[in-house]
């Protein structure tokens, strides 16, 4: 008699574990086999040497990383290194521009009538539901030589005669800002909506100038939203492939294009894998840094996509 409860409890634990295995395992195994293993393989490729058909071979080497930094057979050539710098620069500039545009927009939406707000948010988000290839194509059409925008830029002397605004680094920046704007507006809007106006009131009662009131009473409260938006914009921007490929031309290449080219025609798998590893590292460092800063802010807000 005294035994039975123990036995059933034990039995229950076993069946619970079995239940866990049956429910979770198919998906866990799927992701492990089709994503974890492939990415581990890719990481290993980064440390191999380049074989005759661009496929990776032993022995292990650090050649791929040297090539990524610009060291090749013919000494140092800056091509790959410039691509890295350009990716960083484009990420920084486009994220900053996205913040500059999204901040007033998110604020403005909160000042409008409550009934209008969901509609306004939808209006900001809907273009991003269109496929990104089509959106980049739209910009190609707008910025090509002979279009009003290019003609205006020519008249102002910004670009040479018979040139277009695309392909160029400018077009890539524009495309990135266009692509990621909604990712910043949404978290910022959430922050503005929760804004504690009592703090702003207090600042005004104490005769703070509008600038000071904004800086001390409003801005800190929107910081968690700003941070979430920065994660959502900067990380995918750094790895962007489609926009630089379509709008950038040869001199607008970013890290994503460098990586992809090594697996397509150019075929140097280890170099491509090294680039991918760098991107992965940047992603995790970015996520980690934001988590740390977020914790210090005490927002404790989860970044939800």
């Amino acid at each position, binding site marked *: 008699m005294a035994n039975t409860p123990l036995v059933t409890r034990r039995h229950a634990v076993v069946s619970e574990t079995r239940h866990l295995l049956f429910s979770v395992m198919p998906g866990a195994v799927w992701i492990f086999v089709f994503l974890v293993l*492939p990415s581990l393989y890719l990481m290993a490729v980064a440390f191999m040497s380049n074989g005759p058909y661009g496929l990776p071979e032993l022995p292990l080497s650090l050649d791929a990383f040297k090539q990524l930094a610009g060291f090749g057979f013919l000494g140092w050539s800056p091509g790959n290194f410039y691509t890295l710098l350009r990716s960083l620069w484009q990420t920084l500039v486009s994220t900053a521009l996205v913040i500059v545009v999204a901040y*007033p927009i998110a604020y*403005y939406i909160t000042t409008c009538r409550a009934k209008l707000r969901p509609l306004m948010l939808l209006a900001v988000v809907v273009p991003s*539901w269109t496929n990104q290839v089509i959106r980049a194509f739209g910009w190609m059409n707008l910025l090509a030589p002979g279009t009003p925008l290019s003609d205006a830029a020519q008249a102002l002397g910004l670009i040479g005669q018979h040139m277009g605004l695309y392909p160029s680094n400018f077009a890539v920046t524009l495309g990135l800002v266009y692509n990621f704007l909604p990712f910043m507006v949404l978290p910022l809007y959430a922050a503005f909506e929760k804004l504690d106006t009592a703090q702003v009131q207090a600042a005004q009662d104490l005769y703070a100038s509008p600038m000071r009131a904004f800086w001390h009473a409003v801005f800190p409260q929107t910081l968690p939203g700003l941070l979430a938006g920065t994660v959502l914009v900067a990380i995918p921007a750094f790895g962007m492939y489609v926009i630089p490929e379509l709008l950038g031309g040869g001199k607008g290449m970013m890290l994503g294009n460098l990586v992809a080219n090594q697996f397509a025609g150019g075929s140097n798998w280890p170099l491509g894998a090294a680039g991918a590893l760098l991107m992965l590292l940047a992603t995790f460092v970015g996520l980690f840094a934001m988590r740390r800063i977020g914790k210090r802010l005490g927002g404790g807000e989860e970044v939800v996509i």
Partner: protein
Amino acid sequence: MRKRTLNRGLAGFWWLTLAFLYLPLAIVVLFSFNSTNSAANFTSFSLRWYHRLLGNEQIISAFYNSLILAIVSSLVALVIGCLIGYGMYRHRHRRLGWLIVLIYLPIVLPDIVFGISEMAFFVQFNRLTGLLEPGLGTMIIAHVTFQIPFVALIVYSRFVGLDPSLFEAAKDLYASPFQRALHFLLPTLKPALISAFFLSFTLSIDDFVISFFTAGPESATLPIYIWGAIKKGVSPEINAIATLMIGAVALAAILSLLFNRQGRR
């Protein structure tokens, strides 16, 4: 007074931003009705590019590929993701850190790294075993991989939102686990399953990068076809097919608006 100027400025900025957001789409729609093959000058209204679409077998097969890929991958992801979501909820008191990492991995991995890893893996696997030739099959596998987390998280959050005593009640009411699943779990999950399916479907239809790297020669989807056409040199047919896709998005936007209205009532 100052506040009013600020608000006027903001309103102006809002309309400018909207113009910025919709101009590239508007230009694609406009030139899909252009009678000449020009991306700069609109000559006169015509539907000739739409007529050409209907005769283009490549576009039609790309359309079917997109549809098959989205439906099959969403269904597979729905089953697998739903199981994970349920397991995560039932065993939420255990240490499931490894599972959380596994589930967030497909979400945080940059698209290009995701796509290239899969491609490198499939190519080598195919060289070794002759299985998994690049094509719709490999694309479905890749899509399921990025859809699973979203389904799992939606199902999980639906369970968390439920009153835990409901589970006890269901246990008392229905004898077998099968009956419980049929009469309690499935009906309560229905809204979550529907939205998970539609999210998976949308993610699949919208994806370009991962499809591009896992596709085979015969399995181009619509975005891949459009990409190829753009790379080869712009043809006005792209405007027409892109316009149809923009139309589908507009329709989805209107539906979501109506759906939300109804939900709030």
